[in-house]
């Protein structure tokens, strides 16, 4: 959905917009230079990213769940949802991420209203 959702002032969940970039994001299975990529490489790249995020964010508190949108469609592309056990931890992490970079790209972090990913559909 393309609606602008309300951003809660406090939430245990953070949204990091467009943070994950697949190596084959232009054409599936092919890198930016047009060379085919081994699917294992893509998986490894994803796991490295996931690990980076997890390691950085678990400093702020216990992570309940960590979701990365590994899609190629425009909608929610590369969005990372981090749900902490405590709202305070999410707030601390949000503050710590402000103005920082990941792989040369600015981190866009905000609270997200999502607290249950099974129910995370637009209403």
């Amino acid at each position, binding site marked *: 959905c393309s609606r602008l959702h309300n951003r809660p002032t406090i939430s245990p969940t953070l949204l990091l917009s467009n943070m994950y970039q697949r190596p084959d994001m232009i054409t599936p299975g092919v890198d930016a230079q047009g060379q085919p990529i081994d699917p294992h490489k893509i998986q490894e790249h994803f*796991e490295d990213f996931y690990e*980076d995020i997890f390691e*950085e964010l678990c400093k702020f508190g216990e992570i309940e769940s960590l979701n990365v949108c590994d899609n190629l469609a425009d909608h929610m592309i590369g969005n990372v949802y981090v749900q902490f056990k405590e709202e305070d931890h999410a707030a601390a992490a949000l503050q710590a991420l402000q103005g920082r*970079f*990941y*792989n*040369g790209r600015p981190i*866009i972090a905000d609270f997200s209203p999502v607290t249950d990913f099974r129910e995370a559909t637009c209403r």
Partner: protein
Amino acid sequence: RSRSKSKRISGFDMAPPASAMLAGAAAAAAAGQIPGTTTM
């Protein structure tokens, strides 16, 4: 995986080149989102 964990550097705080930084900041300010550029 057998790869040593400690050898890989985290992508956190990897700053972009100055020119990309300006473009990125401008785009972020304008749209609140980063367009799909390839910086990898």
